[in-house]
């Protein structure tokens, strides 16, 4: 059965390959397709720069800009990027998501914003990325191991959010973004103001978002075996709010550029009320269903503050860049006190934590990095270092991970050799040192412990004082060959990831999935070896790209469901314990676009991924959150009209295959067929263009499950039909 499915997909890919090759032969109507020119906040960036980067980079890089995000606007940044093959999300309701690149997520994918590695609570499945998608101008997604650039964690890939382009000289202006969504009755707005004289500039933004419970095309869901009726298709208590502020300011001269970045992202969002705690719960339906916009318990509040400075200057042949950063992630999860294990039935009055504060994480991160880029003949060399220190405090009445401090330092050298116009070689080495120090924790209540038929009451120890140190040497080597329309690339690299506190020392209940999670202090640093290939063909009226990869982990860190139950803190719940196993993965993405006319084009974007554990307790099983194969068929019509600029109409159909490759506690997910339409245009008013975008996601209100959704395990279907209208009104005040 499994083999049959595998063969089916193999032939699907072969068939698409054949179709494309027949197009090679039949194409004979070359049309002039001008290089894409995009206006980015008053600065004109040529589309060729992105093409050039692709041709000179041996890893597979996808770059998108803010107009891509606007056209495909989802509930959060990663949801807006899902159209890219190989990029998926683990969505937490309608307003939060985390990146899933080629099936890897959590601490295996890093997010970099303005050069600073984003540090939140990315280990948690309920944690969404704290990034304001309105503040994103250009995103680069590296689908492959990038540890040699970013250090630990970039095993699966990186999402690099580039700094905003600087405003042009002697300008002053801004824009207003307005967004409305029908499904969760969202209203969002973002206000931007920027200015610059000769050398000094500022760029600021204020974003607000307010949304209600999202709606699904069903009136009853089955949380494990418990059936939960939904009121008017609303997923109870999934409303949320967001308030973000950004400011970048600094000096840009000929020899020196120094920019300060300041941002604060604040969100408050509810969790589906019937599935939080120790078991699926009954809720006060009258209270919950009174309003679809209120946020009742359980909910989370997250505040992410970032302050950094990036300074670059040239000295002779050398381009230096330094960066100093501070981040503070403060996350609180609120839920009614539920005594479990031997906690007292009534919450004690003299407790250290407020009654409904279930968890609290407080993370402070200081970082410093420096790099020097210089050229010697054909060698373009970058050497750099970075040092990061972090301190993590915990709070709340429940325990999952201990408080800890962490220190990391790395040193790298990267050499890009331009042999000639067609050939590029790449080589990189990096050394990392990391140490993590976890603090001991004792229960605040006593549990009965039996020994030699004597039962005693004890404060059980949840975690020990434990210090772990890791060293790692990683490398990467690549080649590019660009003969004419063809671009070929290959890269072989190693990556590593230091085990995190959750993997080493967790010892508590995951209230979303009703399970007891247990760390393993003996874990080694995770290593990965990956071969990436890339092939691209670009011609006037068609393009084609295929990016296969093979990946091997000798010691993948994996949360293994055991057959045991925890009878203390876990209140009888199933024990999941961290283990390491050999993992073999491979897959490919394919993208092709064909222009029938200058204004009419069709595209196909497909992805396939296979993962298998080659050793350990789950030998033969896949990894959790394995995205099933999917193909996106798109039709785009972009008429050239005089009055309206950049008009487009697009129709997408995404076929997602069934996922039968599962591992406990996952469930097999059926195939799905989802249709989206989008249209938009720019209206010229004076000097500026007002852009209007309109989208209908899930056009036919299809009820389907997404295998990689946070809520998949409890059988919650994806959002129903969603009509999205967004508008961007730029303005400028000339001097």
């Amino acid at each position, binding site marked *: 059965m499994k083999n049959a499915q595998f063969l089916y997909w193999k032939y699907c890919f072969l068939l698409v390959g054949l179709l494309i*090759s027949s197009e090679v032969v039949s194409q004979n109507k070359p049309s002039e397709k001008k290089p894409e020119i995009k206006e980015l906040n008053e600065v004109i960036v040529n589309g060729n720069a992105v093409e050039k980067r692709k041709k000179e980079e041996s890893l597979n890089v996808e770059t998108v800009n803010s107009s891509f995000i606007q056209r495909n606007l989802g509930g959060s940044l990663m949801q807006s990027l899902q159209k890219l093959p190989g990029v998926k999300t683990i969505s937490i309701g309608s307003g939060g998501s985390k990146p899933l690149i080629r099936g890897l997520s959590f601490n295996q994918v890093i997010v970099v914003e303005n050069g600073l590695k984003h540090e939140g609570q990315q280990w948690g499945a309920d944690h969404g990325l704290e990034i304001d998608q309105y503040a994103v101008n250009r995103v680069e997604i590296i689908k492959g191991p990038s540890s040699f650039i970013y250090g630990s964690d970039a095993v699966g890939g990186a999402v690099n959010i580039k700094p905003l382009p600087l405003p042009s000289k002697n300008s002053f202006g801004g824009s207003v973004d307005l967004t409305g969504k029908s499904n969760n009755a969202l209203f969002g707005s973002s206000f931007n103001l920027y200015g610059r004289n000769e050398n000094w500039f500022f760029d600021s933004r204020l974003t607000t978002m307010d949304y209600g419970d999202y709606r699904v095309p069903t009136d009853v869901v089955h949380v494990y*075996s418990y059936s939960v009726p939904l009121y008017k298709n609303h997923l109870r208590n999934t409303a949320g709010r967001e308030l973000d502020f950004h400011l970048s300011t600094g000096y840009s001269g000929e020899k020196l550029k120094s920019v300060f970045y300041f941002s604060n992202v604040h969100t408050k969002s509810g969790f589906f009320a019937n599935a939080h705690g120790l078991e*699926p719960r*009954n809720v006060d339906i009258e209270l919950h269903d009174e309003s679809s916009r209120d946020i009742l318990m359980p909910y989370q509040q997250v505040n992410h503050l970032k302050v950094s400075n990036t300074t670059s200057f040239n000295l002779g042949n050398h381009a230096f860049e330094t960066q100093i950063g501070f981040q503070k992630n403060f996350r609180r999860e609120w839920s009614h006190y539920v005594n479990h294990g031997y906690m007292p*039935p009534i919450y004690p009055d003299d407790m250290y934590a407020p009654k409904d504060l279930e968890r609290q994480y407080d993370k402070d991160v200081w970082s410093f990095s420096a790099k020097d880029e210089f050229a010697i003949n054909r060698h373009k060399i970058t050497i750099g270092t970075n040092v990061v220190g972090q301190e993590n405090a915990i709070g709340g009445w429940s325990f999952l991970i201990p408080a800890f401090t962490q220190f990391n330092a790395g040193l790298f050298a990267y050499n890009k050799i331009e042999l000639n116009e067609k050939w590029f070689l790449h080589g990189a080495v990096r050394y990392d040192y990391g140490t993590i120090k976890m603090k001991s924790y004792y229960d605040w209540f006593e549990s009965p412990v039996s020994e030699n038929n004597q039962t005693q009451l004890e404060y059980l120890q949840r975690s020990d004082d434990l210090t772990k140190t890791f060293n790692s040497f990683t490398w990467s080597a690549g080649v590019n060959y660009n003969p004419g329309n063809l671009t070929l690339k290959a890269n072989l690299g190693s990556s590593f990831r230091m085990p995190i506190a959750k993997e080493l020392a967790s010892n508590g209940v995951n209230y979303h999935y009703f399970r007891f999670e247990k760390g393993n202090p003996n874990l080694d640093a995770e290593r990965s070896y990956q071969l990436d290939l890339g092939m691209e063909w670009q011609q006037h009226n068609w393009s084609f790209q*295929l990016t296969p990869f093979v990946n091997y982990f000798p010691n993948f860190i994996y949360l293994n469901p055991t057959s*045991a139950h925890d009878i203390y803190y876990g209140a009888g*719940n199933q024990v999941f314990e961290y283990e390491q196993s050999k993992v073999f993965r491979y897959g490919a993405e394919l993208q092709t676009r064909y222009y029938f006319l200058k204004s009419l084009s069709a595209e196909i974007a497909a992805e396939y991924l*296979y993962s*298998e554990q080659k050793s350990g307790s789950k030998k033969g099983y896949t990894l959790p959150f394995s995205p099933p194969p999917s193909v996106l068929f798109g039709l785009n019509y972009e008429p050239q009209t005089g009055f309206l600029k950049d008009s487009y109409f697009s129709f997408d159909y995404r076929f997602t295959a069934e996922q039968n490759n599962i591992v406990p506690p996952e469930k097999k997910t059926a195939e799905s067929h989802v249709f989206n339409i989008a249209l938009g245009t720019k209206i010229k008013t004076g000097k500026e263009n007002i852009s209007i975008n309109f989208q209908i996601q899930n056009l036919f209100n299809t009820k389907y499950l997404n295998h990689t959704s946070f809520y998949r395990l409890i059988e919650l279907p994806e959002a129903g039909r969603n009509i999205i209208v967004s508008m961007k009104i730029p303005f400028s005040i000339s001097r």
Partner: protein
Amino acid sequence: MKKIPFLLGVLALAFISSCSSDNAAIDTEYPVIDITAANSFPIQCSTIERGKTFTFKASFNDNVELGSYSLDIHHNFDHHTHSTEVNTCETDAVKKPLNPMLFINNYTIPKGAKSYEATAQITIPADVDPGDYHFMIRLTDKEGWQTLKGLSIKIL
């Protein structure tokens, strides 16, 4: 020249498909908790008396090998949860717990067993609060698949 991308594509695909999987069938089936037999106890809406010992009885099945099970009795004085069963039981009014019964224990199942008749003796102390309780059965198989059964019971 134009054939190059196609040939490369085929090569890449051949490379990918050559890594075909050869693993034996993996277990993707959940274990089953069966409380339909006449002597199963407790079942939905069962009542249990304080100061007495009762015997838990259920039968478990799995396609490959059973793992272990846990039993948990906790109060439902606040009506916080329903059960996995279709029929509902009559409940008392909401009340505050003073000395509610709390019982959590795990039990092993002999290795290699595909089916198992589970029995366990549970004593209800005489001084616990009477009222609505939940009786949770959590059964795993060797691979870690888990099935839950949540029953509403009353302690008199």
